[in-house]
């Protein structure tokens, strides 16, 4: 009763009805790709099939975070990270902690949990991109919920890369990567070169949506 009276007093002083239920929007940090922002203190999923540009997007996010002088951690479930490509993409390797889990998703989850509990990281990424789909689906919703609760109210951005969405409702943002086209140059058989890949990244389409023309598009340039 007293709370209701206090609310009314506040509203009369501030002049108008206040929305008491809504929570402030999380701060969005630049991902290195125009039009894509990642919420701090939330779980973001990047999904897509092989060669869809999801790793290029992750590396661009890591490069942007290390460029902001944040300390990042990459938990690599399948040990697929290529430091040479990442360094060429602008990732400051000395500011990156790389955990190589040698094909064990359970170890990856434990390591990510420890890193989040340890705190102090600007970005924690968990790469399950080559983890078999059935193994990734076996990760319980409780584990994802624990990770989400771990980063909540912290300045850490938690990003996962996988073939399909696994965290479901625990993810605040899901970015689905789809390759639009691959650019080759030169003549086949003699001087052909892989030039890059045009990727569209956006939230997955709902059952009633038809196209995602508003989704950001970026080109990953071959080294």
């Amino acid at each position, binding site marked *: 009763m007293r709370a209701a009276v206090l609310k009314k007093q506040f509203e009369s002083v501030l002049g108008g009805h206040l929305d008491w239920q809504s929570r402030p929007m999380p701060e969005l940090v630049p991902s*290195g*790709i125009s039009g894509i922002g990642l919420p701090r203190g939330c779980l973001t999923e990047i999904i897509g*099939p*092989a*060669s*869809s*540009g*999801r*790793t*290029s997007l992750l*590396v*661009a996010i890591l*490069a*942007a975070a290390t*460029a*902001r*002088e*944040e300390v990042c951690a990459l938990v690599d479930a399948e*040990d*697929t*990270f*290529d*430091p*040479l*490509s*990442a360094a*060429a*993409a*602008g990732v*400051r*390797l*000395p*500011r990156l*902690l*790389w*955990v*190589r*889990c*040698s094909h064990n998703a359970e*170890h990856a989850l434990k*390591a990510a949990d*420890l*890193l989040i*509990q*340890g*705190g*102090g*990281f600007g970005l924690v990424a968990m790469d399950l*991109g080559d983890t078999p789909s059935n193994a990734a689906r076996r990760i319980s919703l409780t584990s994802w919920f624990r990770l989400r609760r771990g980063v909540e109210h912290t300045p850490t951005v938690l990003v996962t890369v996988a073939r399909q969405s696994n965290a479901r409702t625990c993810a605040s943002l899901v970015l689905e990567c789809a390759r639009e086209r691959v650019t*080759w140059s*030169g003549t086949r058989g003699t001087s*052909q070169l*892989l030039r*890059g*890949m045009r990727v569209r990244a956006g939230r997955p389409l709902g059952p009633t949506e038809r196209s995602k023309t508003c989704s950001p598009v970026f*080109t*990953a*340039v*071959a*080294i």
Partner: protein
Amino acid sequence: MFACLHGSGNLTALAFEFSPLVEQTAPDTVTLDVSGLERLFGFPQDVAAAIARRAAEIRVKVHIALAANPDAAICAARGGVPSGPGISIVPQGDEAKFLGPLPLTLLAPSPELLETLERWGIRRFRDLAALPPLGIAERLGPEGLRLRELARGEADRKLVPLDPPLEFEDQIELEYPVELLEPLAFLLARLLNGLAARLATRALATDELRLRLKLENRATYERTLRLPVPSLDTKALLKLLQLDLAAHPPEAPIVRVWMGMNPVKPRAAQGGLFVPIAPEPVKLELTLARIQAIVGEGRVGSPELIDTHRPGEFRMVRPGWDRRSPFVVCQLVLRVFRPPRAASVAMASGQPGFVAADGIRGKVLELAGPWRTSGDWWTSNPWARDEWDIALSDGALYRIYREPRGWFVEGSYD
């Protein structure tokens, strides 16, 4: 009661074994307060004998003198008037009589004063002690009076204490061997807490922790933990030690635990308002140790590229956050298969036409290559390969290569 040790060797270490109040009187002379040692050893002769025994054990050649005041003990030790082998006991109240035969040069008077006393025919303590104080004050001044006091063994003063060397070490001798790490953790915690408390009282921290375990099979097992920044967080240090011992367990039960800490000044740094967040160093060290216990040694750290053209070469280093100016470009990156997947490749017109490997199968739709690279041919571990970038009919882009051992898929572009 004071004792003076005059001789050669590590006199201060010997003195600190008997008293915490030690004065380094001269490079070859150390004076210590031995009041109270009578209750432990008995008569002053027994105290002196105990010191002499210990000196013989650690091979220090020393003359020991005990007296009621420090200066009398110093004069007796330097004069070497023995009441036993290398021992002088100056009886209380009879100092002047005991020190009387000593030469005046022991008091190190100024050359002018010594010359004056020589002319007067005064060469020994007893000669100076017999002179009237008023006459000495008139003719020789305060220095003369001070020399007379010393010669009579009446000078009294406080010792100028020497700080004991800062050694933060402790050990526990166990009554029965410890086999499991869990009971060992209690012993480690006890040592850690004691050493940390000693460091804290001196406003110090540690950046290196040394653990030496004596095993039942008479072997010695040593572990050293180095911290990135000085710390006194005993909980974190204990957990680090536990994780380290769990990863590298000793081969036999433990019968003695020795621990040492390197004392350093704690690092004080103020964080900036606009400085990006970074993990707390000691907490990060603990997190890394925990992750290392899960994923294995050498699999956590920052990647560092090696200055070579050999593909896939890098090394893992300890994370150290640098602050260099950044640049960001969206690059197409490779997902590396470790180890590379062996492939069967069907050639068509001298180029790969069909590729099959573990989880990969398809017709080559587009390709770029071959890119021929080689290196280290001047070493015992040369390498040479031809690389292709290919687009397969399964929809993915791969990098494949051929080397003398056969065809391999190195990774996929993603």
